[in-house]
């Protein structure tokens, strides 16, 4: 869990200052080698820190499943390599499985681990253990024939699809590891993808075999929005905006007009591209003046669908005279041969994208859908044109992260990434999140000159350890009340006729007379302008109390929020990302309309019906989750039933 390490901060600092006591003696040598001041290539400070925290968590705290949150561009690969070398030389773990979500990430890791270059660059094996480098050969799944390559190599690199259980190769790969490999460590790169159901299942299978598992991600948010759900559960900021956005999206879809049409129809797209090319030109001037012409700025265009991406390529080529200088990388085009490598072998678009920042590459711009959102490390990306709307903080940050790699290492010279956005896409939340400097109403021919950069975010440093708060030990054993889930079935069923199934749910409308109410809390309300409420745990007495009267608007608002939260929770439990939350929200709202509002929308429902719906929400949630496989079927068979 994110930041779970904080409570050990004091002890961890003592551990470092005390010279790593109670640590495996081999580990002590390993650390001494890794941190040696005079070595040629040292890890960055934060990489060393991440490594040490990993060691502490595994050896001192006895945790075998860890999550490292490393900033985009923070060099996760070197940390993974250091951890592999340490587990190999100090814990005799012999097999290392690195799982990645897609081919772009796989390509990046393959480059680093092929020929063991990352181990050599940082001299990760300490003196006397250098021979162990021979045991960390790389086997990339899908290459070199059958799965026996896994046994012959120390490191197995594969993308998750290569373990999917609905095809024979995936079944074979997974079975092979489970059967033949014992001393295994798993590295789950870009771990925010984990909620995908196949991902979770495969990791659960493998964790039986794993002595150690390290998840790495640049974002504490997960792709299903699980952690970021706070973004739409607080009235003070993003939450209202998010649901409003959703409503607005639905409304526009119904009217046949999408938000992105503001930027993807021909004329607006041409204008946006003109602005973007001006920003690229500025970046070229900066690269020349500040960067001494050592790197070649690249424009990255992000589209929402292949059709828009192709149209953007056409506009760039035809209207801006960039024929042959724009690379298209989509699911359809990734393996298209676009040229030849130096050795005469064919060069695919996906491979060309990796080299696009090189002066030898003919390309000045790359256009992609979501193919290049993670794992694509091209520091030369200096301008990003958004032709799509992001609703997910994960995807938004990933894309902006492409432009935040530094070209000028070893200097304090600030660098700029220019992102071209359109106000209709309503990305204010994203610019707040990445703390961008926003300039609005930019004309096509406008030039900026040098930018004032926003101040750097300060690090959070422990400066008053005496203020750390010790949490008392619990009385008795720590446990969770599991009585709710004892009866849960573990089998799932397919429900192609899910509409019929949910139509069969019924809700008792009879009125309930409330004769006694348990006090759920004692509320203290400040009478000053802060309007602050404190809710304390009540004493164990009972009393009766009337309920507050609320108007229909408040009730509808409350219902919408609760339905949205319920939809996200149901999707999460079914292992489906929250990208389906809009659809799920509609399904549940339709269900409520049918069952409680006589088919009318919430706006026409009576106060009593709205209250009934709110009262029945837990029951609705239980109904939807009572049939394992139902939520999956609702998503799978969205157009039938």
């Amino acid at each position, binding site marked *: *869990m994110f*930041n*779970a*390490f*904080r*409570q*050990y901060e004091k002890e961890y600092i003592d551990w470092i200052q005390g010279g790593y006591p109670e640590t495996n003696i081999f580990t002590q040598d390993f650390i001494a080698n890794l941190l040696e001041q005079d070595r040629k290539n040292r890890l960055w400070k934060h990489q060393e820190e991440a490594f040490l925290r990993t060691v502490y968590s595994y050896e001192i705290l006895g945790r075998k499943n860890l999550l490292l949150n490393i900033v985009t561009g923070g060099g996760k690969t070197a940390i993974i390599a250091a951890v592999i070398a340490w587990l190999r030389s100090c814990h005799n773990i012999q097999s290392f499985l690195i799982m990645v979500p897609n081919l772009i990430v796989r390509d990046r890791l393959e480059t680093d681990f092929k020929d063991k270059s990352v181990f050599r660059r940082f001299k990760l094996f300490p003196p006397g253990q250098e021979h162990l480098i021979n045991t960390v050969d790389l086997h990339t799944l899908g290459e070199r024939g059958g799965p026996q390559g896994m046994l012959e190599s120390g490191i197995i690199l594969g993308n998750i699809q290569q373990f999917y259980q609905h095809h024979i190769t995936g079944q074979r790969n997974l079975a092979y590891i489970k059967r033949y490999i014992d001393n295994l460590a798993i590295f789950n790169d870009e771990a925010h993808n984990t909620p995908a159901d196949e991902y979770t299942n495969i990791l659960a299978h493998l964790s039986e075999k794993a002595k150690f598992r390290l998840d790495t991600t640049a974002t504490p948010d997960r792709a299903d929005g699980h952690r970021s759900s*706070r973004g739409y*559960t*607080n*009235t*003070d*900021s*993003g*939450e209202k905006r998010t649901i409003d956005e959703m409503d607005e999206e639905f409304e526009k879809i119904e009217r046949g007009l999408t938000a992105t049409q503001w930027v993807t129809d021909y004329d607006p797209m041409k204008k946006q591209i003109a602005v973007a090319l001006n920003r690229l030109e500025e970046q070229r001037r900066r690269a020349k003046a500040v960067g001494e012409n050592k790197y070649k700025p690249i424009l990255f265009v992000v589209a929402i669908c292949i059709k828009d991406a192709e149209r953007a390529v056409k506009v760039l080529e035809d209207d801006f005279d960039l024929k042959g200088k724009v690379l298209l990388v989509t699911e359809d085009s990734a393996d298209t041969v676009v040229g030849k490598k130096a050795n005469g072998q064919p060069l695919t678009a996906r491979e060309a994208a990796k080299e696009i920042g090189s002066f030898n590459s003919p390309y000045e711009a790359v256009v992609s859908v979501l193919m290049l959102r993670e794992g694509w490390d091209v520091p030369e990306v200096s301008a990003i044109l958004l032709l799509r709307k992001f609703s997910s903080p994960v995807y938004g940050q990933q894309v902006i992260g492409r432009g935040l790699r530094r070209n000028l290492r070893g200097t304090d010279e600030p660098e700029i990434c220019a992102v071209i956005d359109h106000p209709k896409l309503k990305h204010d939340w994203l610019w*707040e999140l990445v*703390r961008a400097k926003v300039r609005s109403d930019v004309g096509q021919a406008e030039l900026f000159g040098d930018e004032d950069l926003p101040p750097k*975010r*300060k690090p*959070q*440093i*422990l400066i008053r*350890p005496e*203020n*750390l*708060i010790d*949490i*008392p*030990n*619990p*009385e008795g054993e*720590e446990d*969770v009340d*599991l009585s*709710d*889930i004892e009866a*849960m079935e573990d089998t799932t069923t397919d429900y192609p006729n899910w509409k019929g199934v949910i139509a069969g749910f019924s809700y008792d409308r009879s009125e309930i007379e409330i004769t006694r109410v348990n006090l*759920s*809390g004692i509320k203290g*309300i400040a009478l000053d*302008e*802060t*309007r*602050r*409420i*404190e*809710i*304390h*745990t009540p004493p164990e007495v009972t009393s009766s109390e009337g309920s507050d009267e609320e108007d229909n608007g408040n009730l509808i*608002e409350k219902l919408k*929020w*609760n339905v949205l*939260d319920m939809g996200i*929770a*149901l999707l999460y*439990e079914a292992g489906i990302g929250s990208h389906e939350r809009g659809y799920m929200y509609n399904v549940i709202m339709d269900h409520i309309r049918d069952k409680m509002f006589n088919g009318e929308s919430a706006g026409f429902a009576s106060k009593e019906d709205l209250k009934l719906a709110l009262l029945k*929400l*837990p029951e609705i*949630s*239980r109904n939807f989750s009572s049939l394992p496989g139902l939520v999956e079927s609702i998503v799978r068979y969205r157009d039938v039933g």
Partner: protein
Amino acid sequence: MSVNTHYGDFEDPKKSPYSIERYDYGWELEHMRFLEKDKTVAKWTKNHGVEIPYVTESGNIRKYRPDFLIERSDGSKEIHEIKGRHLLENPDTLRKREAATNWCKRRGMRFVLISKEK
């Protein structure tokens, strides 16, 4: 007082162990200021690593990370959770609250839910 700031740093908090405390929403910042001023509060942090297991409405085990860990001048300890008013009766909020109350009780601590009147 209206606070519209989101995602920021509360700099140099005197009662926190850290050089800065990060907040995600205006209400959290407001609460940080409140804690700094409150003479009965000796220490506080948002960066505490507390995770409280609970069972969701539909029967899954999740971990919940409350907002603030507080130590009063008399040595007593509290967990404070900031919650939007519309979520106070959400079934999962109630479950989290119950789990957190029990978690605190077992440690001789108190759980306080903080919200705001409209």
